[in-house]
């Protein structure tokens, strides 16, 4: 006769409610795990999306995501001539805010040369960029439909396509535009800044008799340079070895070539490390809290059965029978709670504002941890049960 099943059946409503409460807690643990994974996936998605083998950036920087990197956009022509390089193309990144209706949406703008490296790996709806100006492919997460017109600075973009699941390390949706548009937005100075610069230039020219005849207005367009990029993306021939090609490029004085693995490492270790550690620590705290709560529930359930356990001892039930009653109930509670938690998180994870990546591996690991916690917690209950004095069940007479 299985006493645990009988007890659970008898107190089913309460048991179910307790398991549901535990399920909510475990769903939070799962969500934190998913947020942790999602943060890493988000951070890496933007690096992996272009499918580049190397990233050529400004020397002594970890750019373009971890630090500012500025290099001439025509550097790609030189890079393309390096043995082993199949394709090379400039790319520009910038964090901007789009106004759509009454909403403001932060996006990571990516400027690339349409038809070259840097394009989104897939367009889920609409089409990729076709014109060289004023078109935009947004991630679906931004919530802006195809056909929407978005004014930015001096230009107005039209949304022509939507991607899915490509976001920045901070979870912002990506916006693909042409390199020229991106350069204009990132590097073209505002009118006020141009006027200030011209005034300073004019003052400088006036102070130098040899240059006094020159006009700042005629020199300014020459000095204003928007032909910059944040990185050159490089795709190698299948036979080329990325580290060897990178070393060769680094012999040039002003650039650094990073492999995609190095770029991922920089992102994972420098950009999101603290947030990642924070979430990991919070996860550990949640698991510790779950352990204490499960232990308390099991202990309370055991305490409630003090008299019954004493009676079982008097009628001769062996310790194994009493221990298995507690262990089975602890496992049933944990597994039911885990089930509730898993169903709940699978139903709601898509509605989180940032990516929550629920991985089967993580679920299996948590399942194992929950089983271990239940076994540990039941040890507390079993120790208590075995220490119950059987005379507790009898009258207090002497």
């Amino acid at each position, binding site marked *: *006769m299985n*006493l645990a099943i*009988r*007890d659970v*059946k*008898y*107190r089913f409503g309460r048991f179910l409610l307790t398991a549901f409460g535990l399920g909510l807690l475990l769903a939070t643990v799962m969500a934190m795990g998913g947020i942790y994974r999602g943060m890493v996936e988000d951070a890496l998605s933007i690096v992996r999306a272009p499918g580049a083998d190397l990233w050529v950036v400004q020397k002594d920087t970890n750019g373009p995501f971890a630090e500012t990197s500025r290099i001439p956009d025509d550097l790609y022509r030189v890079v393309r001539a390096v043995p082993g390089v199949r394709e090379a193309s400039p790319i520009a990144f910038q964090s901007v805010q789009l106004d759509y209706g009454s909403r403001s949406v932060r996006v990571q703008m990516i400027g690339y040369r349409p038809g070259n490296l840097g394009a989104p790996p897939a367009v889920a709806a609409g089409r990729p960029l076709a014109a060289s100006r004023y078109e935009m492919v947004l991630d679906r997460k931004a919530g802006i439909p195809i056909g929407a017109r978005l004014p930015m600075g001096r230009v107005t973009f039209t949304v022509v396509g939507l991607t899915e699941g490509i976001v920045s390390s901070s979870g912002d949706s990506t916006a693909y535009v042409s390199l020229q548009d991106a350069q204009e937005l990132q590097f073209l100075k505002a009118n006020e800044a141009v006027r200030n610069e011209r005034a300073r230039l004019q003052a400088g020219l006036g102070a130098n008799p040899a240059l006094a005849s020159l006009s700042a207005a005629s020199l300014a367009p020459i000095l204003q340079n928007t032909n910059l990029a944040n990185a050159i993306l490089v795709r190698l021939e299948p036979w080329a070895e990325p580290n060897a090609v990178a070393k060769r490029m680094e012999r040039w004085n002003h650039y650094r070539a990073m492999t995609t693995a190095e770029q991922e490492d920089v992102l994972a270790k420098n950009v999101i490390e603290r947030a990642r550690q924070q979430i990991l620590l919070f996860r550990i705290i949640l698991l510790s809290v779950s352990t204490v709560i499960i232990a308390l529930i099991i202990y309370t359930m055991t305490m409630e059965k003090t*008299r*019954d356990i004493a*009676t*079982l*001892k*008097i*009628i*001769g*039930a*062996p310790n194994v*029978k009493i221990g298995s009653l507690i262990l089975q109930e602890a496992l049933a509670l944990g597994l039911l709670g885990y089930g509730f938690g898993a169903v709940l998180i699978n139903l709601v994870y898509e509605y989180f504002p940032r990516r929550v990546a629920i991985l089967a591996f993580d679920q299996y690991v948590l399942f194992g941890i929950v089983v271990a916690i239940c076994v540990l917690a039941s040890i507390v209950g079993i120790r208590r049960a075995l220490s119950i004095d*059987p*005379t507790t*069940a*009898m*009258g*207090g*007479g*002497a």
Partner: protein
Amino acid sequence: MPAVVGEKLSKIFGQGDGQVVALKDADVAVEAGEIVALMGPSGSGKTTLLRALSLIDPPTTGYVAIGNDVVFEGARVLTDDRQLRRKRMGIIFQAYNLIPFLTSVENIALVLTLNGISRREAMARANKLLSRLELGHRAETYPATLSGGEQQRVAVARAVINDPAVILADEPTAALDTERGKAVMDLLRQLGRVQGAAVIVVTHDERMIEGFDRVYHMTDGRITNH
């Protein structure tokens, strides 16, 4: 040969100045099929003697034998006390002590399953006994919805289902009115005789004294006469 023997049983609680002697050289011997009452005022040591004989709370010193088996001698328990109670004893409590999450029939069958009998057979035997006790209609009922008299009859059934050599009852009628108390006591006497068990009933209710073969009187931990 007596079914249960207790000789020179003493039980001392505490140490030094706080020492309380609950049993002093108590001698008990009950034959198979004999039904004896253990009477005395509150605090006289009746329940302590019952606990000592069942090894629920073994005596400090003395000798206890169940049938031919010496289970306690000197100051040592010589057997697995749970196995002893499971296989050879039936115990009835003042507060019934049915397991609340088991139905009436399951409470009775539990004793058999603990002794290794299959669930199916245990349930069949438990149902049969409940029918004999005219409680067949309450077989699937949980203790909380049974009356006090019904609960105690189920408790009696649980105590006798494994044909024990010894039945120990600790004030089984204390929580019942006179009529229901007498009914339970009659049932206990009847089942004890039919099964040939030695029955020891702790009571301080003089109204229940009829029908016992012998009565032990206890005062201050001593058996004064029988």
